[in-house]
């Protein structure tokens, strides 16, 4: 039965990636009868000047493959094949750079920053939220609640702007932008790693501050309901210590829905992360996307977006695979009426 669950989740993963690819392909084409990509590409190529030669060739190649003479379904199949091979073609704005190279250069930055910030805010927020609902927790925690409430409502990047203003512009404690200092030579050395960390503190903090509030709120709500369960009362009747009840009985069970909503919220979280990167000029996928958008670089937009979608789909899959390990009922639940 666990194998069944595994295959179901894998199937869902494939479905998500396929749906995303199809949407990306279809929506712009629904908006206009012409092939907007080709059209804009041609226009860019004409305006590009110096590098127009290579671009011209590319447009021709595109036309051959995706041209209007081809029926839509064939265009779609070509497109799917390319996506499957992660073949996004050449960047229009940075020709002859390949999109995939651009993307892979930005990828580690985003994964590092986004991954760490999300993990930290999830763990801190869930724990804090659980404590907020726990009657025996220290009272002072309650004072944080309004703060968390407010922070959780505000988009990441607005927080980023404020942090940037306070700690980089006004007090100059942290760098204003970028992923590392221009003066430092990238290498696997301690000073360089320190430099990277210094650069990621503010964008990371922006995500963590907003994220912690969000997770704390969710957790608190579920914990309030969870504490009313009969097994909590029985655990108290068993004379168990408060810590054991909190961790093994209350928190452990409420973690299940919390993890579910974690998987569901990843898409939202990365949307925020993209914009935080833009605010901080952080060299990840978000900044790359901004560049692609302002340069009308459709291949690059396509590539970045597709990779972002894959990141989220993989992350969701990983969380899903964690779930049966957390919940022994998972393999049986479907059999119940």
């Amino acid at each position, binding site marked *: 039965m666990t194998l069944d669950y595994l295959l179901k989740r894998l199937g869902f993963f494939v479905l998500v990636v396929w749906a995303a690819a199809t949407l990306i392909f279809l929506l712009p084409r629904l908006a206009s009868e012409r092939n907007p990509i080709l059209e804009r590409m041609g226009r860019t190529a004409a305006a590009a000047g110096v590098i127009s030669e290579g671009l011209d060739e590319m447009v021709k190649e595109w036309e051959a493959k995706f041209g209007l003479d081809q029926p839509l379904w064939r265009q779609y199949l070509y497109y799917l094949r390319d996506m499957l091979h992660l073949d996004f073609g050449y960047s229009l704005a940075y020709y002859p750079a390949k999109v995939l190279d651009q993307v892979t250069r930005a990828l580690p930055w985003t994964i590092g920053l986004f991954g760490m910030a999300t993990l930290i805010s999830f763990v801190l927020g869930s724990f804090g939220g659980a404590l907020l609902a726990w009657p025996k927790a220290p009272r002072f925690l309650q004072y944080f609640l309004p703060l968390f409430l*407010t922070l959780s409502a505000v988009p990441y990047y607005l927080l980023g702007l404020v942090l940037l203003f306070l700690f980089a512009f006004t007090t100059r404690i942290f760098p204003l932008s970028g992923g590392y200092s221009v003066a430092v030579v990238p290498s696997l050395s301690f000073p360089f790693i320190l430099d990277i960390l210094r650069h990621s503190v503010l964008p990371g903090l922006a995500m963590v501050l907003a994220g912690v509030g969000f997770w704390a709120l969710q957790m608190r709500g579920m914990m309030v309901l969870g504490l009313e369960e009969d097994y909590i009362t029985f655990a108290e009747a068993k004379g168990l210590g408060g810590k054991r009840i909190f961790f093994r009985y209350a928190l452990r069970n409420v973690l299940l829905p919390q993890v579910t909503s974690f998987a569901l919220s990843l898409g939202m979280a990365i949307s925020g992360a*993209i914009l935080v990167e833009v605010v901080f000029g952080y060299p990840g996928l978000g900044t790359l996307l901004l560049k692609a958008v302002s340069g009308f670089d459709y291949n690059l937009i396509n590539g970045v977006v597709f990779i972002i979608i894959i990141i989220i789909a993989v992350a969701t899959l990983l969380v899903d695979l964690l779930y049966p390990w957390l919940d022994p009922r998972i393999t049986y639940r479907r059999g119940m009426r």
Partner: protein
Amino acid sequence: MNALRKRLWGAVAYGRRNPKLLSGVGLILALVLFWSIGSLLVSPTRAEPLAGLPSQSPSWQYLLGTDSHGRDLLAVIMVGTGFTLRIGLSAGAIGLGIGMILGFLSGYYGGLLDTVIKGAADVLLTLPLLAVLVVVVAMMPGVISLNVMILVVASLSWMLPTRAIRAQVLTMRERAYIQVARLSGMNNLEVIVKELMPNLLPYLAACFVGATAGAVLASIGLEALGLGPQHLPTLGMTIYWAISYAAMLRGMWWWWAPPAVIIALLFVGLFLLTAGLDEIANPRLRRGM
């Protein structure tokens, strides 16, 4: 008349017990007032480029200063608040409308229809919507208008309402009072409208607020990437311009801070509304607050 007053007092008394709902409504109303009074006092033309001297810091002439293009920022955020509210509310309403239809169909009738609708909503929900929207908008031909923006954002804001309403309908559908209603001769439509809907009202309201917040978030996110209506001074576009003209580095805090504050207030207001409505819909949550 008396009944009306009684009802009004009832609402006030309830507001005291549900301060979140009250302050949420207050915040949103304040923003609406800010926009409507603002557009009476300040001419919208002042929000256009070259309306004043460029890059002025706040003064009596320009209360919130001007940007590099000479837009009066006070006028900009007044007009911009209106645009953002319009995008959010319209897209939220469309999203809720679609969500209600799909949610009721899916939850009440079940079967294959349910599988398809739920599957679609689930798949789309896990996607990073901003990324998908970026592709869609970036590849749109021509200049993006406010209405296109609304439609694009609304097209992907129906999933959460669908899911939420479906889940509610599913739990309610099995309730005995639905069976009693059917035994009392009601048909499916009557059961949905007369038995299910009234109990769902707080949920529907919460869904509407949630969809609105989602739509605002998505639209401002798109705008911050430069993918908004380029010729309109929306809040997100203002932030975009501020970032791309390095307002932060040039110390022009009055460029980015006011729109940021308005956006923050809007989100806090919407959030408080949702939390307040949640308390109505799910009274058990009130405890421990």
